[in-house]
């Protein structure tokens, strides 16, 4: 009986890692800034004296039927591949609904929902990977062709993880939506092939994230102050080195006030076999600084792949 129980426990332990799932990145298709600018879907505002232009996704979705065709086709094909995407239009609507609910919510005692300026700033459409697309129509006499570009961009490392582009056949009297659909069909498989390679690399070498270290000005010390026989910055760097997959990371910037670590490869699962993202991984560094040097810190995160640890206080 004892043997049976031990065998069962061993089997469960060996099967568990196979059952656990890594945190799935969200992907969203958006028109590129170039497409929005060319087609007049930009909004301008004055940012402390500088004119800034930003894509107006909401207006683009409401006014361009061609854009709807392309996004819908890509979403449909990705769903068929077992990887449904976040829909831009639905995300924009959810944000509006959430904003309206936040504005109207109050407790019985009249208290309102807490929202810091950073919460408001972060209230934008989010995805871990953006599929940015552009198309241009080339005209030569009565013939038309479509040049189509798809770029898969990692939101945290700013790397292009997949891409496909090309110009389709020159056609006469063919409707643009059909030409666009053909362009999507022609290029999406190659795009997905590269995306698959990106995921394979992630499973083999860990998730690539960006880590920023900053300090509050109330902190009595800085990243060059000695703690435990070495500068705090180097102590942090040592922890990062010990806790990355094969010690893979690069220190992009380091000063007394901030450090930036890029190409940080974190494991997909922790010691308890739970899925890890940037925030849960940096939680380990936060605990290390508290336990070892009695330094409080605050974690702020952006999606699965970017975290900032601000040392000095919570």
């Amino acid at each position, binding site marked *: 009986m004892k043997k049976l129980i031990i065998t069962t426990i061993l089997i469960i332990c060996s099967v568990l890692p196979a059952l656990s*799932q*890594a*945190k*799935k*990145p969200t992907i969203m298709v958006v028109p590129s800034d170039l497409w929005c600018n060319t087609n007049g879907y930009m909004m301008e505002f004055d940012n402390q004296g500088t004119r800034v232009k930003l894509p107006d996704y909401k207006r683009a979705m409401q006014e361009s039927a061609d854009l709807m065709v392309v996004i819908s086709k890509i979403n449909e*094909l*990705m769903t*068929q*591949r*077992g*990887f449904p995407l976040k829909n831009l239009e639905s995300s924009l609507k959810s944000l509006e609904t959430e904003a309206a609910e936040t504005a109207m919510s109050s407790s019985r005692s009249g208290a309102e929902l807490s929202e810091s300026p950073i919460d408001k700033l972060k209230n934008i459409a989010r995805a871990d990977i953006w599929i940015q697309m552009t198309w241009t129509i080339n005209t030569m006499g009565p013939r038309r*062709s479509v040049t189509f570009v798809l770029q898969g961009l990692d939101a945290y490392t700013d790397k292009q993880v997949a891409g*496909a582009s*090309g*110009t*389709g*056949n*020159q056609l006469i009297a063919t409707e643009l939506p059909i030409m666009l659909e*053909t362009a999507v*069909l*022609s*290029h999406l*498989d*190659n795009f*997905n*092939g590269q*995306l*698959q*390679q990106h*995921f*394979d690399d992630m*499973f083999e070498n860990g998730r690539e994230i960006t880590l920023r270290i900053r300090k509050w000005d109330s902190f009595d010390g800085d990243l060059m102050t000695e703690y435990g026989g070495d500068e705090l910055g180097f102590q942090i760097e040592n922890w990062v080195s010990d806790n990355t997959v094969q010690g893979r990371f690069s220190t992009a910037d380091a000063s007394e006030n901030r450090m930036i670590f890029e190409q940080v490869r974190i494991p997909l699962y922790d010691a308890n076999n739970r899925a890890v993202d940037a925030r849960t991984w940096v939680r380990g560094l936060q605990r290390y600084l508290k336990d070892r040097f009695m330094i409080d810190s605050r974690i702020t995160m952006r999606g699965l792949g970017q975290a900032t640890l601000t040392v000095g206080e919570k």
Partner: protein
Amino acid sequence: MKKVLKKTTLTFIITLLFLLIASEAMYGQSRRNKKENTDIWKYEIEGVQTGVQGTYLIKVWSYSPNANLAVEQAKKNAVHGIIFRGFAGSGRVPGQRALATNPNLEVEKQDFFRLFFAEGGKYLKFVSLTNDGAVAAEDRLRVGKEYKIGVIMSVNVDALRKDLEEAGIIKSLGRGF
């Protein structure tokens, strides 16, 4: 008279035997050539046009001493090419990558693929001839002692990919999440 009849019968039997042996030798040779060309996967693929959703429209150039066999062989080659080789773009038709990302997959899963590509195997489910396999005059070339035949085929890539994913041969995009 009896002697003449006997001689004629003997001549007839010898001729018949000769013809039988000759035809077997020819058929056996063509069978061997077919197998050899399939075993070494001697073919070329080019994209013809973007197919309807979920399919690739490709031209497969197969080599065989027998023109009819080349057409049949092209089906096998088409599916093999889509899984392991992919194809380069032609003009404005973009090329496509192979379904298998692991270059050693064919060897690692040889038991699966031996059955998959056997005569009358499962590969036939995913390929269909266009124009009933009619070969254009310019796509029928004589190269040395064999024919190089170009046949346009439609390969149902979506179904093929799904089948290989379900069999655990290739990974799906969302696997592991």
